[in-house]
C-alpha cells in the first residue's frame, strides 16, 4: 500500500544538517520505503539517505510531500509528518 501526505517546513533553516539526520533516522526505523519531494509529482527523494536529503536543500517555507510504502506505511507517514510539524524538536 502507498500513503501520502504533506507538511510545511517551518523550522528556522529548513531541511538542514540536524533535521536531515533526524528525518533519516526516523525513516530508517520503518521497513517500507519513505520518500519525499518538494512538488506533489516529485522528483522523489529517499528519506533514508542523509546525503540525498541534504542535496535537496529544502528551505524554510517549502512544502514537503511525503509518500510511504510497505506494511508500516501508515505509521511511517504519520511519524514523518509529525516530525516536520514538531519542527524537528528544534523550536
Amino acid at each position, binding site marked *: 500500500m502507498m500513503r501520502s501526505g504533506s507538511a510545511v517546513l517551518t523550522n528556522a533553516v529548513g531541511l538542514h544538517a*540536524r533535521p536531515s539526520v533526524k528525518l533519516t533516522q526516523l525513516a530508517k526505523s520503518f521497513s517500507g520505503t519513505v520518500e519525499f519531494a518538494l512538488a506533489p509529482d516529485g522528483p522523489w527523494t529517499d528519506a533514508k539517505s542523509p546525503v540525498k536529503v541534504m542535496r535537496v536543500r529544502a528551505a524554510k517555507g517549502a512544502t514537503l510531500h511525503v509518500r510511504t510504502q510497505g506494511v508500516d506505511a501508515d505509521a511511517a507517514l504519520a511519524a514523518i509528518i509529525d516530525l516536520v510539524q514538531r519542527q524537528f524538536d528544534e*523550536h
Partner: protein
Amino acid sequence: MTSLALKGQCASPGFSAGIVVAAGKRPAPQRAIEKGGKGDPAAEALALTAAINRAVIELRRLVESASGEAADMLGFQIAMLDDEELTQPARDEIAAGKTAVEAWTRAMDAEIAGYEGSDEEYFQARANDLVDMRERVLDALIGAASTSLPPGSIVLADDITPSRFLSSNWEGGAILLRRGSATSHVAMLARSRGVPMIVGLQADDIAGRNVLIDATQGLVIVDPSSTDATRFEQQCAASRARDMATAGFLGQPAVSRNGERIITLINIADPSELDGLDPACCDGIGLVRTELLFEGATLPSEDAQTDIYTRIVRWAAGKPVTFRTLDAGGDKPIAGLTPLGESNPFLGMRGVRLTLSRPDIFLPQLRALARAAAAGDVEIMIPMVTLPSELEATRALLHQACAELGAAQIAHRLPALGIMVEVPAAALTLGTFDAAFLSIGSNDLTQYVMAAGRDIAAVAALADPGHEAVLRLIGMISAHGERSGIKVSLCGDAGGDERFIPQLLARGVRILSMPPRLLAAAKQVIATVNLESAS
C-alpha cells in the same frame, strides 16, 4: 641565515617557539597501488572501506566527549559517512582504476562543490563539514595518526574552526592565522585557555621552519639568529617569573590590602572553558554568554540548551551562575537572527530588544534556564535593558515558562532575574527597575557614554573605561546597590584589567567578573589596593 620578522595582530597573548605545521596540508598521498605499478581495485576498495570505518570510529569517540552543537555536527558527519550514497561515486572511480585516495578526493570534491554553489548560506556553511569528512578519511587512508593536531603544535592556517580548536591540545603551541579575527570564537577560546594566537599574519609558506612567537606583540621571527633566541629566552623568563608570582594567588580568595573580601567571578562562553578549572579558584560564574550556542547552522533546541546550562551549573557546585540571555546584534550578529543592513547595529535591534521580538527563541531559552536552575543557583541577566518595561516583559515570559514547565511536571525553579547595566538611560534611572541584581557591562557602557566604539581604531582611545564620566557612572550604580541592598557586579573587560581594577574598587565595586585566566593577576592587584585610603 638571516632571520625574518613577520607581523600580525595579537588575538591572544603569550610566547611559543618551535616548528610551524601547516594545517590542512599533507604530503602528496601515495598508496600501495602506485608502488605496485598496476592498481588492484579490490585492494583499494577495501582500503577505502577501512578508512571510512576508522573515520566513523574516531567521530564516535569525539561525540562521547562533546555536547550540544558540537555533538550534533559530529553526528551529522557520522550519518553522512554511513550513507552508501556518499561513498558510491568513489567506489565507481576505484572500479575504473583510480586509487582510493584519488577516488575519495574526487568524489568528495564534487559533493562539496554542490554545497559551495548553494545560494543558501546555511548549506554553504555545511561545505566545511564535508571538507572535514574528506580530510578525516584521507588521513585514515594515508595512515596519518588523526586529524587532530599533535599536542603543542604551532599551526599556520588561513583560518581555523572552533571544533578544530577544541579537538587539539594546545599546551605549549600557538595559532598563526593569515586571516582570522581577534573577535572570533577561536580567539575567545584561545584567550580563555592561554593559547598564543596571532591573526592577519602576512606569512607565505613558513611550514617546517623554526619560529619564535611573541603573540603579545603579534610578532613571529622565522629562522631566528642566536641573538634573537637569547633575547626571546629573556623575555619568556621574565614573563614566566611574573606568571609564577601571580599563580600563587589563584587558589586564594581575593582580599584587599586592608582585608576586605572582594568577590571574583568568571566569564565563560562555552562549557569546555571549565575543563581543568577548579571551582575553588572563583566565587561563581558572573557571566555565561549564550551566543555561541546560537551560531550553529540550526537553533539549539530547549533540551540541548538545558543540557549545556545544567553542565555549567553542576560545575559551579552550588556557587551562583549568572546566565546572560541571548545577546545577539551589535558586534555579535547572528545570521538569520539579527536584522541586516542596520545603519548602526549598536543602536539597533540587539540584546533584549531582539529577544523580546522573538518569543519563539526567547521562551525556549528561558525554559531551558529555569530547568537548569533545578540543578543549582541560577540567575538570569538580561542584556541591553533600557526601560523597566523590558525587564517586566521578560519576567512575564519567565513566569510563563515556569508555569508551562510546572504544568508539564518538568523539574525547574524560578531563577532570580537581574539586568545588565550598559545603557546610560538605565544606569541613570536604576530606582525604577525591580531587578534582583545589577551587572555593569562596562564595555558597552563605556562606548555609549563616550560615543566611541573600541572596534573603530581611529576612536578606540576615546573608548576608555577609566574616563571620569564612566567611573562616575559606575560609582553611582555601586552607590545605588549599596543603598537599596541590591547586588552589583561588573563583568566587562575592565573587571579583569589590572589597570582598571583599583579604580573600580575605589568607586565601590566589590564583585568583579572576568575571564578565568585573569583571576590570579586580578587577585594579585586587589591585594595591593588599600580601600580605607581610597574612600
